[in-house]
């Protein structure tokens, strides 16, 4: 995937201590068709106009968010016509498991963010370790959620049981699949990181993987109260 980012994007951490310069001042590359100016990392962060990571992946993230947004709205408006059914069925859900899953995803997002901060300081090994910790949290999510699905399966609940369970199962399973995809991406990034494939100067892959994982987290943060708590 072509990196559409500006070079100056990798210069500072979104949080935590500012990083020291890893490249020199403005650098001019003269190609046949255009002159590309690479800005110094010391340039003000106020000039950043692109998010960290690959812009193409961000467009994919927006498409995913749009789908989840439509799903959430459809759930809410269907509930409006079936309030009693939704409230009754909602009480059968395990909020303890949902809490564990939410805490696991928030923690994994934190670890991923620390992995990005580590690679921005050229610490590949630390980056790898943070990613491994994030993957562990993702695994916790999958195990707990699978336990919930098994419980529903044993109770004879499926997509055809009623409207609530149709929404609940499809929404959460759709998200479940995104967690798996996010873990595949993070695993690929972690493997490359442990081989020294990223540096402070070039770590677009880490930022892209992190952005995708945070998207998965944000979706769950809305899904959790909507499906488990709000009635």
């Amino acid at each position, binding site marked *: 995937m072509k990196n559409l980012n500006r070079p100056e994007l990798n210069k500072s*951490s*979104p*949080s*935590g*201590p*500012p990083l*020291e310069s890893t490249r020199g001042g403005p650098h001019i590359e003269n190609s046949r068709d255009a002159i590309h100016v690479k800005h110094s990392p010391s340039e003000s*962060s*106020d*000039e*950043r*106009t*692109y*998010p*960290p990571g690959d812009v193409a992946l*961000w467009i994919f993230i*927006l498409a995913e*968010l*749009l789908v*989840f*947004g439509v799903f*959430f*709205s459809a759930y*809410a*408006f269907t*509930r*409006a*016509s079936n*309030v009693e059914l939704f*409230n009754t069925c909602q009480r059968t859900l395990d*909020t303890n498991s*949902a*809490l564990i899953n*939410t*805490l696991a995803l*928030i*923690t994994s*997002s*934190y670890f*991923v*963010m*620390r992995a*990005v*901060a580590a690679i921005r300081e050229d610490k590949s090994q630390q980056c790898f370790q943070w990613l491994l910790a994030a993957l562990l949290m993702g695994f916790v999510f999958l195990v707990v959620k699978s336990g919930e699905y098994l419980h529903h399966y044993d109770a004879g609940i499926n997509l055809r049981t009623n409207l609530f369970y149709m929404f609940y199962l499809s929404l959460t399973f759709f998200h479940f699949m995104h967690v798996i995809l996010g873990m595949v991406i993070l695993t690929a990034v972690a493997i490359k990181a442990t081989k020294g494939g990223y540096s402070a100067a070039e770590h677009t892959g880490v*930022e892209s993987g*992190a*952005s995708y994982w*945070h*998207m998965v*987290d*944000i979706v769950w*943060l*809305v899904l*959790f*109260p*909507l499906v*488990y*708590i*709000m*009635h």
Partner: protein
Amino acid sequence: MNQTGTKTIYAVRPCTFVYIVLMTLTVITWLVGKAGLHGLEISLFVLSFALFKGLLIGDYYMGLRGIKGLWRWVIIIWLLLPGSLITWAFVSAS
């Protein structure tokens, strides 16, 4: 906060502080569910927590804070759109 040369040393990293806030809001949301609290106001209160948490993730973890232009607003707009529709649906159902 203490500045040494080009590095800024924080007593608690902003991202760690955000993490603590996220965990706290999540536990409060869970407690609301455990206590069996319900109704429109409670639902909207819990939803506002979720949207705020999403905003924190976008700003501090995704690194959108400080970015100029459209990209700064993508997560905020996404949170507001479904958030408004969900609010509308819950208000109409009450």
